[in-house]
């Protein structure tokens, strides 16, 4: 096992040791995976045992993650940007090694804590939410497996290990979307999610293979010999690929295709809204907070590769693509979210839109900008989803926001926390984390050298976000109750995680304000000073003013259209009355699914038909011809066999039988005959001896 510590940035590399926590980092993903294995072996009725196992193992992971985080923070406080890796060779083929390994650096430390913390809260929440489900044990088995795989993605120091965990995460996503597989829509959604992300993963795998072929290693960092360290990057840059891209750019784009599939970027976003067929805690954990963020994390992880060859202040082709795709997704999904009526679907489109923001943030502002939004989003979006779950639970599995209403008095705790989450998502000024992280992205967009359009797109997206969230909150909590039986507040096991998450949805903003850019400094390995002058950067206050204005306009617009109206469920939406045509487009999700239906799916149908025809007529005919020929050949062989081979064989057998019969007469069965022959033979021998000795 090869171990080393690399010290980058603002301290010269002097120490070469691996801290205890890094050498034990593998335990973090292993704990929940082992727990999942054990739960899988438990009987279905062992509900308490399974949930205890899941939560204890995840708590251990959280504890270890916190240790790892503290270790990195301690190093950072002493002016050392920690980047410790543990690498080992998995197997060899030819002269190449396939190495795996894990690493601890600020990026993975932050993600570790976020993933294990949010997972743990959602596990606890699930105890309440899934209490009535008969497959409770299976649920926690899958959830544990998911958490372990996701933590594996986070600590992987090898693109191959990352890809393996990535696929494991995809598998558990499939299993959990289809958790209620008896519902045909859930089974179909699971398949759709699996296949759609597979499209991206094929490109991702191509990128991995290409990178391995070019650099001979898949380790990220390996003491200067890793695939995204400067030596490998300069060789990648020297290698031209098609369309004026270098190999670095092309591989970056291939990896981005994988990330786009997982993170629901346009045009591979179609699976994410359907994934809401899964249980709500699953939507919160996998399809809002962690797994869909894995794509963003992946881009952040290979950022040196994405950025390779950029002039100072410039950008690369790969990052430009990331930015445009992200910005497009942000606006596109926000538009669709405006006209949805399913509480979870609105949040799903909002997730897609926010993932677009993260991608755009990565593309324009760097790792810290995108990752900050990822972390804050993970908290407030899981808060929103869990709140939605609480609402659904309270309304007895009603998901249509038109059949809710007035819940602010029935479910006060849920209302309070949901509103906090909604304000964080909208980016309401100052108190809420979403404001600071979204502002970081907008600021980066404002200074982007290539084009100004993404900035306007993202501002428009922010307006839409504020609008659709206001609409949703008013529908659910405002007005009067429009459903059947009255709703009830959820139990403490569900509301306490909500309260904890809402605390973080507000407080997390503090670590990334312009006055104290702790998060950015931590990730980039710089010292962070607290200074009010951070706000005085040119244009920053104006930008904050603009974004505040945009949020207020969005909320005001929503309020003026939906406030205090409480329409009947059958009544058309306020926006529908205003512009029925555009409403129709948005309500039908801008026809992306339909487009795929008439293009990709129709093509596969046609191709399947052609393949079937070829199979029946062409290949079937060939097979039948071969079979006919061999049938004939067999007949010929049978004739030969019967007349030639069998005849000879029978003759030989007869001869043997006759010979045997003759020889059998010697065996009389009488002892004295044998003895007599023996005596004669001895006499004969004696005679021969005597005669020969005389001669």
């Amino acid at each position, binding site marked *: 096992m090869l171990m080393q510590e690399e010290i980058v940035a603002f301290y010269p590399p002097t120490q070469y040791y691996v801290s205890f926590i890094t050498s034990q980092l593998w335990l973090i993903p292993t704990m929940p995976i082992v727990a999942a294995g054990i739960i899988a072996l438990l009987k279905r009725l062992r509900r308490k045992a399974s949930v205890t196992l899941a939560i204890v193992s995840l708590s251990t992971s959280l504890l270890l993650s916190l240790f790892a985080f503290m270790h990195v923070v301690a190093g950072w406080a002493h002016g050392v940007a920690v980047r410790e890796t543990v690498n080992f060779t998995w197997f060899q083929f030819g002269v190449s090694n396939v190495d795996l390994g894990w690493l601890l650096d600020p990026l993975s430390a932050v993600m570790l804590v976020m993933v294990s913390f949010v997972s743990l809260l959602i596990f606890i929440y699930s105890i309440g939410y899934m209490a009535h489900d008969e497959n409770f044990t299976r649920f926690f088995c899958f959830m544990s497996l998911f958490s372990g795989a996701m933590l594996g993605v986070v600590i992987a120091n090898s693109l191959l290990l990352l890809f393996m965990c990535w696929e494991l995460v995809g598998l558990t996503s499939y299993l959990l979307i289809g958790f209620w597989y008896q519902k045909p829509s859930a089974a179909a959604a699971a398949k759709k999610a699996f296949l759609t992300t597979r499209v991206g993963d094929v490109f991702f795998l191509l990128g991995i293979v290409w990178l391995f072929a070019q650099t001979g290693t898949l380790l990220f960092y390996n003491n200067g010999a890793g695939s995204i360290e400067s030596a490998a990057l300069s060789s990648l840059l020297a290698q031209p690929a098609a369309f004026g891209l270098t190999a670095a750019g092309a591989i970056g784009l291939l990896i981005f295709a994988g990330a786009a599939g997982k993170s629901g970027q346009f045009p591979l976003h179609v699976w994410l809204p359907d994934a809401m067929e899964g249980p709500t805690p699953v939507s919160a954990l996998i399809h809002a907070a962690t797994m869909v963020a894995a794509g963003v994390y992946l881009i952040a992880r290979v950022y040196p590769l994405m950025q390779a060859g950029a002039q100072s202040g410039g950008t690369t082709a790969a990052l430009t693509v990331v930015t445009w795709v992200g910005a497009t997704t942000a606006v596109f999904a926000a538009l669709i979210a405006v006209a949805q009526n399913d509480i979870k679907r609105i949040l799903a489109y909002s997730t897609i839109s926010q993932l677009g923001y993260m991608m755009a943030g990565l593309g324009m502002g760097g790792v810290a900008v995108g990752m900050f939004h990822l972390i804050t989003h993970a908290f407030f979006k899981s808060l929103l989803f869990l709140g939605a779950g609480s609402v659904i639970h309270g309304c007895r599995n009603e998901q249509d926001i038109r059949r809710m209403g007035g819940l602010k008095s029935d479910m006060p705790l849920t209302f309070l926390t949901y509103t906090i989450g909604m304000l964080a998502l909208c980016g309401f000024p100052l108190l809420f984390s979403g404001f600071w992280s979204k502002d970081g992205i907008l600021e980066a967009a404002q200074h982007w050298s290539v084009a100004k359009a993404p900035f306007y797109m993202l501002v428009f997206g922010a307006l839409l976000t504020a609008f659709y969230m206001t609409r949703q909150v008013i529908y659910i909590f405002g007005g009067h109750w429009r459903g059947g039986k009255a709703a009830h507040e959820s139990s403490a096991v569900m509301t306490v995680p909500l309260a904890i998450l809402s605390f973080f949805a507000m407080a997390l903003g503090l670590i990334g304000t312009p006055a104290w850019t702790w998060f950015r400094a931590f990730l980039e390995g710089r010292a962070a000073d607290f200074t009010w002058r951070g706000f005085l950067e040119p244009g920053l206050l104006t930008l904050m003013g603009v974004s505040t204005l945009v949020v207020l306009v969005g909320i005001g617009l929503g309020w003026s259209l939906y406030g205090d109206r409480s329409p009947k469920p059958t009544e058309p939406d306020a926006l529908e009355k205003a512009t029925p045509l555009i409403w129709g487009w948005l309500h039908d999700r801008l026809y992306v699914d339909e487009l795929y239906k008439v293009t990709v799916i129709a093509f596969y149908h046609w191709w399947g038909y052609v393949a079937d025809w070829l199979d029946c007529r062409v290949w079937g005919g060939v097979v039948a011809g071969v079979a006919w020929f061999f049938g004939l050949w067999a007949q010929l062989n049978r004739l030969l066999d019967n007349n030639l081979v069998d005849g000879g064989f029978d003759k030989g057998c007869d001869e043997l039988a006759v010979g045997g019969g003759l*020889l*059998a*007469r*010697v*065996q*009389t*069965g*009488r*002892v*004295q005959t044998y*003895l*007599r022959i023996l*005596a004669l033979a001895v006499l004969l021998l004696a005679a021969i001896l005597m005669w020969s000795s005389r001669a």
Partner: protein
Amino acid sequence: MTPLASYLLVAALLFSIGLAGALTRRNAILVLIGIELMLNAANLNLIAFWRYGPHPELLTGMMFAIFSIAVAAAEAAVGLGLVIQIYRHAHTTDLDAMNRMKG
């Protein structure tokens, strides 16, 4: 006639008597007795060749004879056991009646 030759002559006689008995008798027990005679003839030869051989001081011939007697005793026990079993099975000790092994 040397002493060795006379011993050998007695042994040859004994062997011939045993062989004749084993070949001519029908009764399985008498055949066994014949075989015992032949074995004893062989033992007599062993002793004679030892006694008048080049190293009479070594006890080799005696040892051979004792081994041979022990083996003969075992053989006689097995043979008699077989005969008893056959008698119980077929109520006869006539060897000519026991020809079921013929080919």
